[in-house]
């Protein structure tokens, strides 16, 4: 049973195929509007997430399907002590596909090992968030038209930022890219990502604490939020959260065709004034998230023989 737990579960060809289906959905939405009629997506969200959950739900509704599920652990049987494995087996009786978010790393893999229907990892703690990566790839595909020879800057929390790790991993499969890593020392990209991904695949990268220094080089600026929930120590969170705030003046030295991405939600790391700049594409990015999830649901249901 094909599931999506880690972005590397999909080959470059499979990702290309998903992007092509997503682009076709954008061009011809009516063609896809009844394709999942009578099918059900279970959204099992053990941790709150408005954006990802709504994006999955909107995706299934736009495919003509239905949605069931819960949006916090308190409203599920896990509050009674049910294991992830049992939840996955039980939900397999009621739905055709699962999208799961869980605060513990690896929980969606446990679900996939026990479910008889496809499982999509909708975020497991600070570990993986492959549908965000697919969203980011569709955004780059539509806004830049290529995945090669790009200067990509990641700014903010590069230590706990799972979207950053996944996107670096995904982009490392394409040629000629340079990665700029902008973060305070405490939130630097972990060594194992540098060693296992960047060094191993011979990807050029630059580490710096200054966003201004690298801004003129960038084709893509990927901003991230410093996430309170990833810190065991509140003091350290408060000390680091306002380190990088993107304001319109900071973009003076940036390229005309830069794109500014952010997985959202933002807190204050991008000033609202930047939203007016045509280079800000984070809300378009959220929209692309729905289309790529539609393509993903279709792919997994087709491979399972459900549609």
């Amino acid at each position, binding site marked *: 049973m094909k599931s999506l737990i880690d972005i590397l579960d999909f080959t470059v060809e499979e990702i290309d195929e998903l992007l092509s289906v997503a682009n076709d959905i954008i061009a011809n939405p009516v063609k896809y509007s009844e394709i999942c009629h009578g099918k059900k997506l279970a959204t099992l969200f053990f941790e709150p997430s408005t954006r990802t959950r709504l994006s999955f739900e909107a995706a299934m509704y736009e495919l003509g399907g239905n949605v069931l599920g819960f949006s916090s652990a308190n409203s599920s049987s896990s509050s009674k002590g049910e294991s992830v*494995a049992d939840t996955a087996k039980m939900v397999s009786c009621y739905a055709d596909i699962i999208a799961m978010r869980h605060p*513990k*790393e*690896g*929980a969606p*893999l446990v679900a996939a090992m026990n479910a008889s229907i496809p499982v999509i990892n909708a975020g497991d*703690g*600070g*570990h993986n968030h492959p549908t965000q990566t697919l969203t980011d790839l569709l955004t780059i595909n539509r806004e830049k038209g290529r995945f090669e020879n790009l200067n990509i800057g990641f700014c903010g929390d590069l230590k706990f930022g799972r979207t950053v790790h996944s996107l670096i991993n995904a982009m490392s499969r394409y040629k000629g890219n340079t990665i700029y890593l902008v973060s305070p020392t405490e939130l630097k990209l972990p060594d*194992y990502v540098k060693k296992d991904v960047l060094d191993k695949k011979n990807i050029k990268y630059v580490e710096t604490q200054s966003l201004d220094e690298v801004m003129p080089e960038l084709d893509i600026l990927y901003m991230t939020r410093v996430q309170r929930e990833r810190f065991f120590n509140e003091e350290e969170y408060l000390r680091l959260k306002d380190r990088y705030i993107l304001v319109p003046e900071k973009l003076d030295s940036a390229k005309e065709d830069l794109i500014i991405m952010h997985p959202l939600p933002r807190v204050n790391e991008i000033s609202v004034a930047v939203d007016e700049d045509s280079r800000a594409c984070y809300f378009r990015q959220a929209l692309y998230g729905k289309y790529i999830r539609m393509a993903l649901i279709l792919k997994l249901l087709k491979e399972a023989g459900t549609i």
Partner: protein
Amino acid sequence: MNIDSIKDGFVIDHITAGRAMRIYELLELSKLDVPVAIITNAGSKKMGKKDIIKIDGDVPLNLEVIGYADPKVTVNIIKDGKLTEKLTIPMPEILTNVIFCKNPRCITSVEQEINHIFKLTDKEENVYRCIYCESKADL
């Protein structure tokens, strides 16, 4: 120092000096009811210093874990006082419930029934990672 020769059993040789106790733990030798000798810092032409474990008894052993702990080790199997087999143990691709994930953010930290599974991700560096959270195993 004299350690009696073995009639039926195992001599685990060429253990990297300092790793014998870890192998003793992984093989759960403390649970055996047969004589076990651990020799540390023995002289070795090839290695300079090495550790050796002798097990005097034909007992069932999960030799696979040795490949994880120290792939350079050789296991000599003794029967009727004679060396019958000399094995090197390749690094196992998967380790199930041999080592345990210590990451407090991993699903295995809250659900007791889940098997702790580690996968060999880098053969040259002898790196095993938890299949759920990808944390690196400490040797």
